[in-house]
């Protein structure tokens, strides 16, 4: 009885094409799988900018990069310009502004040879940040590539494990100082010293990550279906690695700045006035009343730089994890 009712189209008061109807089995359509349009990097940035704090931090990072790379090119900084002026040395910000008049360069006071602390910091951070970026680029590239091979091949694993055990025990400071002694304390020898074994630790980390994912069922299934190893590496494993790599890079870049500061402090760093060297040179100023600004300014700025780089990297790492894209 109810069937009869439903069949009565007029009672439903609906057009015919809104009702169920039989359609033919189309072989062409059944080959297509439809899903919402998904672009990986588009989603990464959508998730990244969803957090408002990220925009603020990115703005801070932009300011920092502006000061490190653009500011030194538009100002001419001469460390020894005021060397003969005894009254220009070790000035607090207010004293410096009183003496030289208000300008951005004197807002952090003046240093031991009458130079502007503000300018010195940005010149130093240009060296430090460049060093960190170059080292991170080299180490991450080599480390990820070697780590991928290391994780995939069991033979390579046996050899590399031993290499890792041995190199990992050579004191890091010793290696750096020997390289610096052999090649002089220039920028590029520092890059060499930090990358000559630095990639090994990243490769080891990547190896573990690759091993975890390598033997998952979907990869086994993929292999059974005849996918080549290269394709498994590129299409099945690399997407999983992206967020890990980005997160790791986020910790790496600040860590190079930190170790540069550390090496300079123990007297084995660069000969250029990097951030670490500035801190090292101003160490005695920390305990001298009235001079503290010289010491704390580079310390605080280097802390801000590393924190900002770290937070941006971590959040980008979170955003690049496809599981957060839902």
């Amino acid at each position: 009885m109810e069937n009869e009712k439903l069949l009565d189209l007029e009672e439903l008061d609906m057009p015919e094409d809104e009702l169920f109807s039989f359609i033919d089995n189309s072989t062409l359509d059944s080959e297509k799988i439809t899903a919402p349009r998904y672009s990986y990097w588009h989603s990464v940035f959508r998730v990244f900018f969803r957090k408002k704090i990220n925009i603020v931090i990115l703005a801070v990072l932009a300011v920092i990069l502006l000061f490190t790379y653009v500011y030194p090119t538009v100002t001419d900084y001469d460390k020894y310009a005021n060397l003969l002026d005894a009254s220009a040395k070790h000035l607090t910000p207010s004293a410096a502004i009183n003496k030289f008049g208000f300008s951005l360069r004197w807002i952090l006071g003046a240093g031991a040879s009458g130079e502007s602390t503000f300018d010195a910091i940005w010149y130093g951070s240009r060296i430090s940040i460049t060093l960190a970026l170059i080292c991170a680029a080299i180490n991450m590239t080599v480390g990820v590539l070697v780590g991928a091979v290391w994780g995939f091949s069991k033979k390579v694993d046996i050899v590399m494990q031993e290499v890792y055990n041995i190199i990992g025990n050579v004191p890091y400071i010793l290696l750096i100082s020997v390289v610096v002694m052999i090649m002089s304390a220039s920028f590029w020898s520092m890059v060499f010293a930090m990358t000559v074994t630095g990639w090994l630790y990243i490769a080891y980390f990547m190896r573990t990550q690759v091993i975890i994912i390598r033997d998952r069922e979907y990869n086994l299934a993929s292999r059974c279906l005849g996918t080549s190893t290269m394709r498994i590496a590129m299409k099945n494993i690399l997407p999983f690695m992206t967020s890990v790599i980005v997160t790791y890079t986020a910790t790496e870049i600040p860590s190079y700045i930190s170790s540069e500061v550390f090496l300079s402090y123990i007297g084995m760093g660069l000969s250029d006035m990097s951030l670490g060297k500035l801190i090292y040179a101003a160490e005695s100023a920390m305990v001298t009343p009235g001079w503290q600004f010289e010491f704390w300014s580079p310390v605080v700025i280097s802390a801000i730089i590393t924190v900002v780089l770290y937070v941006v990297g971590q959040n980008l790492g979170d955003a690049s994890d496809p599981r957060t894209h839902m």
Partner: protein
Amino acid sequence: MAKYLLKRILHAILSVIAVVMIVMILIYSLMNRQLIFSSDSVYAKTTNNAKQTYMLRKWEEYGYLDYVTYSDYLQMLTDSGEIDEDTRAKVVNFARKAGSDSEEVQVYIDKFNDYYTKKGYTVNRLDAVTAGKKLANGGQQQYYAYKDKPLISRLVTYFTSIISVDNVHYVEEDLENRGITFTTHDPVYGGEKFSPAIMGNGTKYKYLLYCNDKFPWIHQNLVTINLGKSYSVNMGIDVFTTMISSQGSYVNSVITYPTGLTEESADDLHMATYAADSLDSSIVFTSRYTDHYTSVPTVKGGMSKMGYSFSIGICAVVISYLLGVPLGILMARKKDKLVDKLGTVYIIFIIAVPSLAYIFLFKAIGYKMGLPTVFNVDSTSKLMYVLPVVSLSLPSIASLMKWLRRYMIDQMNSDYVKFARSGGLSESEIFSKHILKNAIIPIVHGIPGSILGALTGAIITERVYVVPGAGNLLTQAINKYDNSVIVGVTLYYAILSVTSLILGDILMSMVDPRISFSSKAR
């Protein structure tokens, strides 16, 4: 298990040897030897031939090469009885220019040349540098041979001389009644108190085994560890001795010398070593000693370098586990709540800010609070330990929190937790009895590492707070090009790190019965 352990230990020994080899290549082959003279005033002053021989002599002292002069060679021949003293004295002086020697001298000059060329040495003769008829400053003629120490033989001699056992044939001079004696009443205590000791004659140390009132009460000098004799950091003293000998000011006590003389002194008679022909050299010795065991170190009030590093380090380790583990658990339990967010901020701060920056920050805060910021060896105040311990424990608390939180959150999503929850267990039960037990395993693995790591000291902390610890030994040695100290400290680090890895694995398998090393992995 035993077989696996044996294999691991063998592996560890091999990798330690490889590490030492790499370090030896780094410092002896790759580093520029000329660097050791960069701040040497004597080098700058010497000229002509003297400069050449000075360089070679220094290089020998720093362990780069073997260096033998002609007169050393003649002395060696005299000692072995090949030539007598008169001949030696006759032929030891050679002419200013090569080829103008007398026939008698020429015989030995050739002999020297043949002997050392055969052994692979480079033999060199420098003609005198004259200014007019007189010798120029440092222009004395020189005749010598030198040879770089090959890596393999350097490595072998190094490893075979690490552990040395004292024996009665140590002293080369003629001695009456060589041998070992046992006494139940140690003469150092006046011979009245019961205190057993084993004493040797002919050995390096006078006391091979003795008792005193210091931990661990029974001490020995029979087996000594040599990691490498220091040259510039602590002249002539072994690295290991440098690390374990006490520092600070002298502690006087009434002691009885072998002659019976009692005196208030800081001499540590138990550590007396043999010094050839020293007894009659000074009235100080003749009045106190009856034999040549006169070289005595002093008793000092402070701890050793390793002692300071370890006591600061171990406090920091204990504090960081006591704080880090509960805080990590708390963060995991209150995930995404305020506690978790505060903890994350702290972790980010520690990871991202250069360690130097926050150590200085805490030094400044401590200074404002009136804590001592400089370590004083002679002070008995325990307050001076506060800042170094805090500076050391802050980063390890952060890393413990970070990892424990990570492991616990990973466990929270696993099926057995859901099952336990559906079974009606309370959250605190699930956390303490199920999640924590699984999450703590990787943390347990790191415990031996952090305890043994306390022995190596911390570079920045010790430098900032002027702690006389072991952490700065390596940087000091590198700055002073003290090669044998560098090798010794590296060996020490490497041994500690491989031991802590093995101990960590053992501890992990003890905590978690599922981990077994005896059977092959499934």
